[in-house]
């Protein structure tokens, strides 16, 4: 069957017969971000899932606090905290099957840790150790990506490749509100929709791209609305409602796995901390705004809902906090050990085989290192 014979294939036709290719209405997001906690539907969520989400949220917040402290101690070069956004992180980390892939950005260490990555390995990029401290294939987590939105086409390509191979693998790609302005965001969504690739895009709209508010980033009604232009559904969700984010993502993952194509999810949340430890957030936003969002805290929202259903008591909260303290203590101890890096490894992974030029340069560095070792030996 040629392209021209495919049913529903888009072809410009003269205006009198013109019809939209697909109905736009089913693709449109809800007017309000979808909420689950505190609604009647919350009664149907599995208790096990809520308990897991709660534990990871509490651990996540502690992880963020510990990592931020490590920047003050000079152990991390930089840390973009996801405090306030833990619901998005945890839902993204827990929603996938083992065989699925996660494509995180620099702010998404927590999602990677929730997926099972060693907390120290997840931080090597940010401490100035090797760029990616883990083998991406092990937990199917792509390397944390710094250039904005560039990981999105990777997610599409991987999901597409998996489907070509007959594997029912889904890719979940994370991006910030600022990242949605990048060309790669557009190209990735377009490819995904045209190829009906099994991908889910999660935009964590935390209000700011460093200092620039959403209003200066886009004129769209919402970021979820952008989906319609590509021919995929857009979903708008309360990004601080972990159950809602998990449910919306789970539906999108199911749809992708079943051959229904990609979904764009916008989670409306807020970055409580500054962009990174190097940023001064007081320059671009009032404390009152932060406080208003703190009143809509993802952990408090979940705990209230769980207490209502008698799935959580003080003892449960204490147990989650203890687990979080153990995580933080382990992170502290291991991050306070100096990383041991072999400078000779600099030449090892540039190409499959070293070029003669790199062999020469490796020999030069080897000689410099030997001379250094000799010098320090003499000094003793």
């Amino acid at each position, binding site marked *: 069957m040629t392209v021209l014979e495919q049913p529903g294939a888009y072809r410009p036709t003269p205006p009198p017969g013109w019809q939209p290719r697909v109905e736009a209405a089913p693709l449109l997001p809800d007017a309000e971000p979808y909420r689950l906690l505190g609604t009647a539907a919350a009664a149907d969520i599995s208790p096990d899932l809520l308990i897991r989400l709660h534990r990871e949220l509490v651990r996540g917040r502690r992880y963020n606090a510990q990592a931020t402290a490590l920047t003050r101690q000079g152990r991390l070069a930089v840390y973009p905290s996801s405090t306030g956004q833990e619901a998005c992180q945890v839902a993204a980390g827990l929603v996938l099957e083992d065989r699925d892939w996660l494509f995180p950005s620099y702010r998404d260490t927590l999602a990677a840790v929730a997926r099972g990555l060693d907390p120290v390995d997840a931080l090597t990029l940010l401490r100035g150790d090797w760029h990616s401290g883990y083998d*991406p294939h092990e937990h199917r987590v792509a390397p944390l990506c710094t250039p904005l939105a560039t990981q999105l086409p*990777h997610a599409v390509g991987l999901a597409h490749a998996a489907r070509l*191979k007959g594997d029912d693998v889904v*890719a979940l790609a994370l991006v910030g509100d600022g990242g949605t302005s990048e060309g*790669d965001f557009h*190209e990735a969504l377009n490819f995904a929709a045209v190829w009906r690739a099994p991908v889910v895009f999660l935009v964590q709209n935390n209000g700011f791209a460093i200092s620039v508010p959403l209003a200066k980033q886009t004129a769209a009604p919402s970021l979820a609305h952008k989906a319609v232009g590509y021919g995929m559904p857009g979903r708008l969700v309360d990004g601080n409602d972990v159950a809602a984010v998990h449910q919306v993502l789970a539906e999108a993952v199911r749809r992708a796995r079943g051959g229904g194509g990609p979904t764009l999810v916008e989670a409306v949340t807020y970055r409580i901390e500054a962009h990174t430890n190097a940023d001064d957030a007081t320059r671009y936003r009032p404390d009152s705004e932060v406080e208003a969002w703190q009143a809509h805290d993802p952990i408090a929202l979940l705990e209230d809902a769980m207490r209502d259903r008698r799935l959580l008591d003080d003892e449960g909260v204490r147990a989650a906090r203890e687990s979080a303290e153990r995580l933080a203590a382990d992170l502290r101890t291991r991050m306070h050990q100096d990383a041991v890096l072999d400078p000779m490894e600099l030449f090892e992974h540039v190409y499959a085989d070293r070029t003669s030029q790199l062999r020469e340069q490796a020999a030069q560095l080897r000689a410099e290192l030997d001379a250094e070792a000799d010098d320090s030996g003499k000094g003793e």
Partner: protein
Amino acid sequence: MTTAIGADTARKPATMAQALGRALRDAMAADPSVHVLGEDVGTLGGVFRITDGLAKEFGEDRCTDTPLAEAGILGTAVGMAMYGLRPVVEMQFDAFAYPSFEQLISHVSRMRNRTRGAMPMPITVRVPYGGGIGGVEHHSDSSEIYYMATPGLHVVAPATVADAYGLLRAAIASDDPVIFLEPKRLYWSKADWSADAPEQVPPIGRAVVRRPATGGRRSATLISYGPSVPVCLEAAEAARAEGWDLEVVDLRSLVPFDDDTVCASVRRTGRAVVVHEATGFGGPGGEIAARVTERCFHHLEAPVLRVAGFDIPYPPPMLERHHLPGVDRVLDAVARLQWESEWTEGSAV
């Protein structure tokens, strides 16, 4: 490992374009993980028809017409490579590859390195490059220096039909990303199998002496690659009348760079001219001249000269013949070597 075209003469492609198409076909037949993607590569067979017939033979899943988006093409190829495929990307023209540079430089070139070897990127990016076909603006750039300046990429440019086949097979088989520069003005050049014999192409990274100097007193090496190689061969013939014995080295690969073959030649001849279409300032010739000078200084009887395109944006087609280094400009440079050599007569090492 060497790449054979095969003994069957009937299978020999007649032009470079056909050789490239044959290489893609044979690679796809040999390895189901090889996928071709790009703009118009399917039904149309590419604007230069290099991918003609691939979609028919292997299906649209293996030879895919993508949306019109170079960053998207290369970015999705990264994801495909992550999942074990070998994408071969076609960029429609040299200057239209620029939107993909972010993906190329930030991810394709360094994914292996940043993951400490866990994620190689066996991607081949085919770029029809260079001028001489009367293309309008944005259809004739020589962008090799941008690629050369990016660690992690191999940069290859064939000059003969046999090399086009062999090097493309090698590029697709490589576990590293290869920028495969196709000299588009040689697309229709015919195979001269006697000149190309033996029909064996060594792995990426080996230069070849296309025309040896025979040991005449006034000798020099012309160092070149891609579309400038035939220019150098013609210049070498013409220079014989002036008493010059010119050796022509075809680099074939800019990265990795074959210092050994180049320097062995320059040590034999004592003089060198680098010839390419790309602009001279900050161009590949500067790097090559510096390498030759560093390694062969005591063998040189004249400074290493460069014959390059002017330092201008690629000119309109009606003027491109004034920009592209041709035989006369190469011969002028060779004549300047002579002056240097007479001046240093008798003082050679």
